[in-house]
């Protein structure tokens, strides 16, 4: 294991992209920052600019309007960047998959590195997903 991947593993900065979510997932994401789960102990931080992002966390289904914006954010992020599909909506489209504005599941728009299913995923499931992502680096 080289020093590069070691440092990357130890300091993942997350940019949160909220598609057309019902906001429940977004609140669960904040859960893992609370004292009980505290992801900062693994060096994970929520950051505000996609330029600094290592992980693009996409919650909610992607509809026609979100698609160009998601692609823009993905292109703005400095590589290497990992995409994580969050929640049933992010993974497959969930209950919005049949809607007429739905623009296809996330993995048909950008390459996805990890899936965290659930509606919304429990904080434990989020931590498990992060661990899986870290193992693939």
């Amino acid at each position, binding site marked *: 294991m080289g020093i*590069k991947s070691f*440092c*990357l593993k*130890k300091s993942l900065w997350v940019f949160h992209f909220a598609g057309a979510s019902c906001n429940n997932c977004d609140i669960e994401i904040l859960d893992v920052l*609370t004292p009980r789960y505290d992801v*900062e*102990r693994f060096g994970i931080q929520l950051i505000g600019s996609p*330029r600094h992002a290592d992980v693009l966390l996409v919650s909610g289904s992607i509809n026609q309007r979100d698609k160009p914006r998601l692609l823009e954010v993905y292109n703005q992020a*400095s590589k290497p960047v990992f995409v994580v599909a969050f929640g049933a909506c992010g993974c497959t489209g969930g209950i919005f998959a049949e809607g007429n504005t739905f623009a296809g599941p996330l993995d048909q728009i950008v390459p996805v590195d990890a899936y965290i299913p659930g509606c919304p995923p429990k904080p434990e499931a989020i931590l498990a997903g992060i661990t899986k992502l870290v193992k693939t680096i």
Partner: protein
Amino acid sequence: MAEQLFYFFIYPGLLFAGIVGGLLSWFDRKITAKVQFRKGPPLLQPFYDFLKLLLVKETILPERGSKLTFLIAPLFSLIGATLSAIFILLPLLNIDIGFEGDVIVIFYLLTIPSLFYVIGALASGNPLASVGASREIKMIISYELTFLLIFAAVIMKAGMTINLQEIIQMQAGGNAFIGSISGVLLFIAGLFCVQAKLGMVPFDIAEAETELSEGSFIEYSGTAYSIIKFTKYIMLFILPALLVGFFMAGFNWEGTGILWSVLKLLAVVLLLTLIRNTNPRLKVKQVMRFFLVGMNIMVIIAIILIYFGL
């Protein structure tokens, strides 16, 4: 020549100041976590962040904007921070006695990083970055005067000497400046100035994460951003160290003095962290009023007290 290069790159310049600053940055984050009943990041977290940005991430240049200025600005801010680190730490660590008037040089060098953040932000051509830059300029306008007055007051208190080494020696033998009323007032004002210079909450209006998404630094990525991070680590070390030198009799590297020196430095950083964790962000207007009216009056009162020998 070799000696100067050693001073600049290794000890007490770039490498040493950066490493100590990184450890202090961990201390700051750990205390923040403790205040919020969290566990906090591991000891080497600041270095993981720095190395990741330096080695792994790609550096993106702005499409519209001056690429050269955008890249050079972080470099100059790093040089400014390193030079001020040398001039502050040489007398403080007892390596060299400095020279007559180095306090004034330090004052000017300390403004360089903030100025180059502004230039870099404006060169990036991002609207949010320019809002951040304009806020940074307003901050500089408000706190620099107070900072200058503090320098003047300390010089006055030390009997009109403009040499950091002599200012520290004046306080030797248990009469540190913080032991007097004027010293306490100056220390409080200095603490807020340092807080503003470091861009910590409540004065983080220039890089407001929530509404400007990192403001001045929004376009920086990869190596360029790692240099900015490193500059911030250095500043987190030298500004509290300067306060220790001005008000707490500096460092002492003999016997138990080492422990005391470290504790003094940590105490100042602890105060900064606690202020940062117990206050919400101020508006630009409030920051300007806070420094231009409140802090300036406090420092002027301190100067009057010094005049009467208090």
